[in-house]
């Protein structure tokens, strides 16, 4: 499949990239990993006139803790996330997530930021970042602004990024002690989008009472879904089998799946319930209860 013709632009700095974005604002797309964009161009679902390749911009690929946040650079690849000792030891929910995204070749190119900026509710990091209460840094001609993740996903393939902005960093608040998280996904085969998936992150006190909780749902609505009712139920409550069961039911109620080749809507709601149970139980285990 041959994509439509486009002009290829390769800036070396972020300001250069933003200038190019402004020049071609109606008709440009940022090319980072390209693992969603290029297939969409081949299918001619996306037809940008200009591709602005940011892969040669230096200093955008990093994973570090700084100022109370885990910071992931705009060009950090999924494979780098998987290989990072920091992520492996402290953020197993991100390992769970990266492991089930596409396949090794795709993860060598695909970026974490692109997984969010694409605005696809079937992508995996959105639910995880919702559970983690992340923020994204958008850099545009007016400088940087920080967007809370719960305000980022507007509708299918549409995010809070302005046409002249680039997602340059993801910030995850460093979890307090006794925190844990997990991501559970059901896929038909390696590389497939989720039939449904659930991300859960909890912080507990010494008596297993929930201090903080985040629950995100993948591919069961027009946007990634934050299961707020389930979160509200758990906050201040002891995390045990009964409360997990109740929260999982609420998460299933909050899902808005549609029936498709991956299964009927009712089945997907059932899946959310089961996956939420498992994700919360694993999160509790990892929090050290």
């Amino acid at each position, binding site marked *: *499949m*041959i*994509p*439509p*013709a*486009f*002009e*290829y632009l*390769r800036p070396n700095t972020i300001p250069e990239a933003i200038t190019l974005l402004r020049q071609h604002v109606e008709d440009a797309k940022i*090319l980072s990993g*390209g*693992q969603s964009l*290029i*297939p969409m161009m*081949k299918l001619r679902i996306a037809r940008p006139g200009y*591709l602005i*390749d940011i*892969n040669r911009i230096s200093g955008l690929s990093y994973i570090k803790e700084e100022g109370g946040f885990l910071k992931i650079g705009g060009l950090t690849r999924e*494979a780098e996330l998987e290989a990072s000792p920091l992520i492996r030891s402290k953020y197993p929910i991100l390992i769970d997530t990266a492991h089930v995204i*596409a*396949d*090794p*070749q*795709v993860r*060598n*190119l695909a970026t974490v930021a692109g997984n969010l900026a694409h605005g696809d509710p079937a992508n995996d990091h959105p639910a995880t970042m919702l559970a983690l209460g992340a923020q994204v840094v958008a850099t545009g001609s007016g400088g940087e602004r920080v967007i809370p993740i719960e305000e980022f996903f507007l509708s299918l393939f549409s995010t809070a990024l302005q046409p002249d902005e680039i997602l340059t960093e993801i910030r995850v608040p460093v979890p307090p002690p006794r925190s844990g998280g997990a991501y559970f996904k059901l896929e038909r085969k*390696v*590389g497939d989008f989720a039939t449904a998936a659930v991300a859960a992150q909890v912080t507990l006190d010494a008596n297993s009472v929930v201090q903080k909780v985040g629950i995100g749902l993948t591919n069961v609505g027009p946007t990634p879904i934050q299961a707020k009712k389930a979160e509200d139920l758990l906050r201040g409550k002891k995390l045990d089998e009964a409360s997990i069961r109740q929260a999982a039911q609420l998460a299933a109620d909050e899902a808005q799946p549609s029936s498709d080749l991956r299964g009927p809507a009712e089945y997907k709601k059932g899946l959310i319930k089961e996956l939420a149970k498992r994700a919360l139980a694993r999160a509790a285990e990892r929090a050290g209860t």
Partner: protein
Amino acid sequence: MAKKQLVSVKVNGREREAAVEPRLLLVHFIRESLQLTGTHIGCDTSHCGACTVVLNGKTVKSCTMFAVQADGAEILTVEGLASASGQLHALQEGFKQEHGLQCGFCTPGMLMSSYALLRNNPNPSEEEIRRGISGNLCRCTGYQNIVGAVQYAAAKMAKPGNEASVAEGVAK
């Protein structure tokens, strides 16, 4: 039509260049501009991995990358695995000895994924091998013999005096 751009790459140790349209996919560049047809086009939708090549040490699906993005890169394709004298790479020998292929269509991609796997992890477990080739589909073998082929190569390369064999491909 967009203006053609010059793309220079080092493929299997040789400097090559061609002027191409930006929309030319890397796999077409490799097969048509460079006439290296060992890299296959399978699904063309980023699923099957038949087009896998090693780019700057990492496997990529060359159907899901533009040739212009690879400008300046070092690429290893299946043609670069055997030695200049024609001696098969341990992996190629493994696929032959262990019947790791039937129709052979997926084999170039399987070889490149296995090659990258063994470079990072010379002694992978069966699970690690299966994970390493999880981006490559085979519709003939049921994967069992492919796993066996990779194990064969890992064992052969672990023998003293054979360490060089896996690096040979990029070196030449």
